[in-house]
């Protein structure tokens, strides 16, 4: 047997997902849909925030959500109360969403009738960071109960996000969270990232975040009461 020969390759490992994500992003952009991803560890408050965003933004905009979990349809059931279309993606044993899962979940929906699509990832600060879902904006959430050094421990997810949201600020005193230090840590791994401090319990900071999202995407106000199922 001859000696091994080395051949040079230049290939991104997640090439297929990147291509799928790009195709999805282009398709949704053509349809005029803004896609916003939410990532965080389990229990940081992604679903609680989404409940608010879907209800509030859904008044004047056509909004829908996909929500990923390993198991159960609980979150979809919770979010469906906001009255907007919601679909659960149960990943079985997989710890993150990928672009194909999002694409499949959109089957049967006429995305052209949407302005905003929220995609709530599986609660996990590690795995989702590598997988582009075709989002236009990725928001990472971190709650005051998690400790100020979360961004330093999981830098990749913070670095790959466009907006950071500190949740449960109403609890910061009770749990002894130094908010300034937490924000400083977020910005040390992702300099200049916009940071919002919110509490879904008290409603603090939610309006500011919504104004930011609306301004960022300059959404047209449209008639409420629509159907997106084909």
């Amino acid at each position, binding site marked *: *047997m*001859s000696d*091994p*020969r*080395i*051949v*040079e*390759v*230049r*290939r*991104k*490992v*997640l*090439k*297929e*997902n990147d291509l799928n994500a790009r195709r999805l992003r282009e398709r949704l952009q053509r349809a005029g849909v803004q896609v916003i991803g939410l990532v965080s560890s389990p229990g940081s408050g992604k679903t609680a925030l989404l409940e608010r965003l879907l209800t509030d933004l859904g008044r004047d905009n056509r909004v829908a959500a996909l929500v990923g979990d390993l198991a159960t349809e609980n979150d979809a059931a919770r979010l469906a109360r906001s009255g907007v279309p919601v679909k659960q*993606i*149960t*990943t*079985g*044993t*997989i*710890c*993150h969403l*990928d*672009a*194909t*899962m999002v*694409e*499949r*979940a959109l089957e049967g929906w006429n995305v052209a009738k949407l302005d905003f699509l929220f995609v709530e990832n599986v609660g*996990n600060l*590690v*795995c989702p*960071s*590598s997988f582009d879902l075709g989002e236009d904006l990725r928001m990472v959430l971190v709650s005051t109960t998690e400790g100020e050094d979360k961004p*330093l421990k999981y*830098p*990749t*997810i913070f*670095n*790959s996000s466009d907006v950071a949201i500190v949740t449960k600020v109403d609890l910061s005193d009770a749990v002894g969270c130094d908010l300034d230090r937490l924000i400083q840590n977020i*910005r*040390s*791994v*992702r*300099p*200049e*990232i916009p940071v919002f401090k919110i509490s879904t319990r008290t409603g603090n900071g939610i309006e500011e975040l919504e104004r930011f999202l609306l301004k960022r995407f300059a959404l047209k106000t449209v008639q409420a009461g629509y159907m997106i199922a084909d």
Partner: protein
Amino acid sequence: MDSAKCRLAERGETNVEDRYVDEVGQYRSADLFAVLFPWGPSTLRQDEENVSREMHELSIALSIVDGVLEELRTRGVNRASVVHLRVGKLSGVDTNALQFSYGLACQQAVLAESRLAIEDVDVTVFCEACGLERPVRTFPILSCAECGASSQRVARGQELEITGMEIVA
């Protein structure tokens, strides 16, 4: 973790547990789960963070195997003995978990005898103040090792790419 199931997930199959039955046609998914994890899902959950982490690298390992097989096909080659990989420190991939997962991922493929040679890539940023690409002072804090200015322009450290293969003719 068996790779048939991972493949399904890799293809974006949701509800993998259910679909696994059709693909394999031998077990009901619940039975299979019970065989694989006799102590039940509740024990798994206690170790969720570790399990998740490993599964993430498993997904990536499966993508490596697919990528290498495609590269081999286009070159008309049957087998690779070593796969060279570049992994940035900011890629979110744990190289130990990836090595372990690669062993599982390539079991049935023609890559069964192959190994991964991983080159770690440290993080560098483009420092506006220095006007140069610089290493960072303390990972993962993105500030220039020379002048200390923070920078949001990551130059290196996000790589996750196949850079070469050692092939046996």
